[in-house]
């Protein structure tokens, strides 16, 4: 009988049993519905090779990440299975800089000790503190570096963000797991306009995507919309303005809900995107930040005519996780 690993624990399956059935048989609750590889509710992740049927209809980015339909895949001896937002890759990291970017956002630089820990800018990692406190943060700097940069917004009363914002952490060791997610730039987007929309530190993954696109000499348009409640909530304004000056195909559009209309677009970012002109046939979109706003903007972009296959997003949903250290 084949054995497999799920969340670091070993289980047994019957011959020719699907991953979904094997997990359920072992008393593990896994969402599922159609059981025919269509509804996507039983999606899981692995680094083992899977049958093509188990990935049919998934986006290329999802296939690359190892996502598969557990109802369409038989258990292969020794395969290790994860939930979609987990990863087996991890590295020790050392905090080497904390620089304020605004009154509420701090730039945290982490030196990744495991040099084989690859990532794509815009993906996110789980940052695990020595006591097991664990939160996802997006990678804001270019791909292929040994140091990752995070933009962390201080949430009053927030355990991880107050710690990263307020304490002197230089030299502090943390654990990093990941990278996870499909918000990142790929060369196949080179014939596409890029629409990047974010609120708050939703700018972080978008910065990563922008920097990678510019480094790849992306020649089509890149629109970056950054929304905040007021001027205080914006950051990197000068940096992004100068990037826009240097790169004629890049347009930076900061917007505030309340504020000085001489300096910024004033209005709800959802309405601003509603009014935006898009080349809908050839636009790839990345939307990150506040979950409600992400959902609303996704719908708008989709209704404008952009295919759902070209809409990627990271809603910053609140999670209260602890992880193994």
């Amino acid at each position, binding site marked *: 009988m084949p054995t497999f690993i799920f969340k670091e624990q070993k289980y047994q399956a019957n011959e020719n049993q699907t991953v979904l059935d094997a997990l359920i048989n072992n008393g593990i609750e896994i969402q599922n*519905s159609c059981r025919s590889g*269509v509804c996507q509710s039983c999606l899981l992740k692995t680094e083992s090779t899977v049958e093509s049927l188990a990935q049919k209809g998934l986006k290329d980015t999802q296939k690359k990440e190892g996502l598969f339909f557990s109802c369409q895949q038989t258990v292969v001896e020794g395969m290790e299975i994860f939930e979609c937002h987990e990863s087996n890759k991890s590295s020790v990291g050392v905090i080497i800089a904390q620089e304020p970017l605004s009154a509420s956002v701090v730039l945290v630089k982490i030196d990744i000790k495991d040099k084989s820990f690859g990532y794509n800018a815009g993906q996110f990692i789980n940052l695990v503190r020595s006591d097991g406190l664990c939160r996802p943060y997006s990678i804001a700097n270019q791909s292929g570096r040994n140091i990752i940069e995070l933009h962390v917004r201080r949430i009053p009363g927030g355990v991880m963000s107050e710690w990263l914002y307020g304490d002197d952490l230089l030299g502090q060791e943390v654990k990093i797991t990941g990278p996870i997610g499909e918000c990142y730039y790929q060369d196949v987007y080179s014939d596409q306009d890029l629409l990047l929309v974010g609120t708050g530190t939703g700018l972080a993954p978008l910065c990563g995507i922008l920097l990678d696109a510019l480094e790849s000499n992306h020649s089509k348009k890149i629109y970056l919309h950054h929304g905040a409640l007021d001027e205080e909530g914006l950051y990197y304004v000068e940096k992004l303005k100068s990037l826009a000056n240097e790169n004629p195909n890049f347009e930076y559009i900061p917007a505030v809900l309340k504020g000085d209309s001489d300096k910024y677009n004033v209005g709800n970012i959802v309405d601003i995107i509603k009014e935006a002109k898009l080349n809908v046939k050839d636009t790839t979109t990345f939307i990150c930040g506040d979950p409600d706003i992400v959902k609303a903007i996704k719908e708008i972009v989709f209704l404008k005519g952009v295919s759902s296959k070209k*809409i990627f997003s990271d809603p910053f949903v609140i999670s209260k996780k602890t992880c193994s250290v």
Partner: protein
Amino acid sequence: MSTLYEDIGGEAAVDAAVEIFYRKVLVDDRIKSFFNDVDMEKQMAKQKSFLTFAFGGSSKYSGKSMKDAHSHLVERGLVDSHVDAVVELLGETLKELDVADDKIQQVVTIAESVRGQVLGRE
């Protein structure tokens, strides 16, 4: 003999149809509220199940029964007029994809065949 599913264009047709269909659903005041509380990818995947079924492509559909899949919607007030709306949007979608009228009729018949189950009457 080719099946209805193959005639319409198989999985590629389902992929094309789900985008068109879901754009219609999201702006249809009669039914959009039923589709509002879930995230878009998940919802579109479910609608893909719906279309695959209606196109006659899921003889092996072995998931939840139609009744179970919609029971929480019936609790929220799902009635015949909503099924009418869904069937209407389904027809419009297929027309936009240039599917022949007799094929559209067959699809509508399949969808109609589970009306009672969807509404929890059977």
